[in-house]
C-alpha cells in the first residue's frame, strides 16, 4: 500500500523540478507527460485485448477488454452499475469519514503528550499490522452481516494508518516553531489551529491516502462475504453465475474508483499545501 505513495511522490518532485518554459512548450511537455504516464496502462489494455483474441489465453476466462467495456456499458444502462457503485461508495466513504473524524483529533491529542504517545504507539502499530480482513469474522459475529459490520470494518481499517500518521506528524512539528509559539504566549487552541495543524497536514495526508486505499480493499472483501449489493457482491455473484465479462467489469470499476479516490485526495492535499 505504501509503494504507490512513494512512487507518486517521486513523480511529483520530478515534475516540479523541471525549469519554467514558454506556454507553448509547457503545453507540449504536459502532453508528452500524459503520454509517458499512460503508455504502460495502454500497453496492459492492449495485451488484455489481444492475448485472448490471439488464443494465447482462453477467452472464456479472460474476456477481451472490449468485451469488458461492453459489459460495463450494459451494467450501466440497466442501472445496476450505479446501484453497486453507490452501495460500495456509501460504505467506504462513511467508514472513511468516521475514521477521519475519530483518528485525526485523537492522533493530535495523543501526539501532543509524549508519554501517552510513547505508550500507545506500539498498540497502534499492532492494530495497523493486524490485517483488518482477519477480523472480518469477528465483526460479522458481533455486528451481523448488515451495513453496520461493513462500515465498522472500514472504520477499523482506516483508523490506524490515519492515527499513526497523525501522531507522527504532531510529534515531528519543528520544535523552533513551538518555541516561537510559546514565546508569543499563544493559547492552546490557537497553537493547534495556527501551528500544529498546518504543520501536520502533509504527514496526515500520507495516512489519509493509505486509509483511502484500505477503505476500498476492505469494503470489497466485506461485500464478497455477505451482501446483496456493492461491487464486491457484483464480482463474486458474476463469478458464481459464470458471467465472466460482468466480473471483469466489476473489477475495472473498482480500480477506477480506487484511482479516482486517491487522485481526489492528492488534489485536496495539493490545495492545502500549495505553499510547498
Amino acid at each position, binding site marked *: 500500500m505504501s509503494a504507490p505513495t512513494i512512487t507518486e511522490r517521486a513523480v511529483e518532485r520530478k515534475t516540479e523540478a523541471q525549469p519554467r518554459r514558454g506556454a507553448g512548450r509547457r503545453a507540449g511537455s504536459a502532453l508528452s507527460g500524459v503520454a509517458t504516464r499512460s503508455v504502460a496502462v495502454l500497453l496492459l489494455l492492449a495485451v488484455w485485448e489481444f492475448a485472448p483474441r490471439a488464443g494465447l489465453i482462453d477467452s472464456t476466462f479472460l474476456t477481451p477488454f472490449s468485451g469488458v467495456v461492453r459489459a460495463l456499458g450494459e451494467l450501466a444502462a440497466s442501472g445496476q452499475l450505479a446501484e453497486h457503485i453507490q452501495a460500495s461508495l456509501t460504505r467506504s466513504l462513511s467508514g472513511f469519514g468516521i475514521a477521519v473524524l475519530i483518528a485525526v483529533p485523537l492522533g493530535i491529542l495523543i501526539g501532543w503528550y509524549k508519554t501517552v504517545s510513547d505508550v500507545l504507539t506500539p498498540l497502534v502499530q499492532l492494530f495497523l499490522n493486524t490485517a483488518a480482513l482477519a477480523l472480518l469474522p469477528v465483526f460479522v459475529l458481533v455486528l451481523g452481516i448488515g451495513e453496520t459490520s461493513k462500515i465498522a470494518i472500514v472504520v477499523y481499517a482506516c483508523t490506524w494508518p490515519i492515527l499513526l500518521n497523525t501522531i507522527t506528524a504532531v510529534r515531528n512539528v*519543528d520544535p*523552533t*516553531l513551538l*518555541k*516561537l509559539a*510559546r*514565546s*508569543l*504566549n*499563544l493559547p492552546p487552541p*490557537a497553537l493547534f489551529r*495556527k*501551528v500544529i495543524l*498546518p*504543520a501536520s497536514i502533509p504527514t496526515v495526508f500520507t495516512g489519509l491516502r493509505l486509509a483511502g486505499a484500505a477503505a476500498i480493499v476492505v469494503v470489497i472483501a466485506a461485500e464478497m462475504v455477505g451482501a446483496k449489493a456493492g461491487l464486491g457482491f457484483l464480482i463474486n455473484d458474476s463469478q458464481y453465475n459464470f458471467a465472466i465479462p460482468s466480473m471483469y467489469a466489476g473489477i475495472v470499476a473498482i480500480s477506477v474508483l480506487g484511482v479516482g479516490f486517491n487522485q481526489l485526495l492528492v488534489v485536496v492535499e495539493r490545495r492545502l*499545501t500549495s*505553499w*510547498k
Partner: protein
Amino acid sequence: MTTKIRFEGVGRTFPIRGGRERLTALEDIDLHIAQGEFTVIVGPSGCGKSTLLDLLAGLGTPTSGQVLLDGEPVTGPGVDRGIVFQQYALLPWRTAQGNVEFGLEAIGVPKRDRAELAREYLELVDLASFADRHPHELSGGMKQRVAIARSLAYDPGVLLMDEPFAALDAQTRESLQDELRRIWQRTGKTIVFITHGIDEAVYLGQRVAVLTSRPGRIKSVVDIVLDRSAAEDIRSTPEFARYRHEIWTLLHDEVVRAQELEKEAVSA
C-alpha cells in the same frame, strides 16, 4: 539611564544521567542592561549562552537568583520580548507578510491594521516587494529579515537574538549586521544578541559580555567605544582590532577549556 534588564545571581542547573547528577549550565550571573542598550554576549560553545537567553525570554526558570525586566521578575514568556532564532522559525505555509502578521495576531491586533503594520515592517527590513513569497522562495538572509520584521512588528521593548546570523554566508551576515544596527538606532530597542563571533560582537555591541566555559559565568564586560563615522570600513581600524584582540584574549582560554570539556564528554 534606566536599567531595563537585571540578572541577579542567576544560576541554572539541569538534571543529567537520569536525574542522578546535575549539570551546572550557568552560575552566578550578574548583569545589568540599560534601556535601549545593544548588548552582545559571547562565549565558547556549550557555555550556556542560549540558556541565558531562554531565562530572559521566560522559556525557562533560573534555579537560583532572578531575572528582572523593568524591575519585575520574569515569570514566563511575553510579547514584551521578541525572539529571533538562528533557524528563523518561519511558518513555511505562510507568506512573508503572513509570518509578520503571525506575531500581530498573537497580541490581538485587529485584522485591518495587521496587514498595514506587517507591510510597514517588511519595508523596514527592505522586503516589501517579497511580501507574498513563501519562506522556501526566500534566501537565508531574507528569511532572517522576515523573522526580524515579525519580532519588531508587535513592538516588544526587548529584542532577544540567539545567534541569528550564524547560518548565513559572510557577505549576507555583514549586510544584516549593518541593517540591524540601523534598525536599532531607528527603533531604540534594547537588544540582547548572542554570538560566538568576535568580529560580530565588536561590530554590533555597545557592550560585550564574555562568558566563561561551562559553567557559564560572566568573565568580563567590555565597553565598545568606536567612532563609527571615522572610517568607512570600521572593521579595519586599529581600535576595532584592539577590541577584537581584547575579547579574543578573554575568550581564548575559555575556548581551550570548552574543547577539553567536550573531549571529556565524548570519551566519558
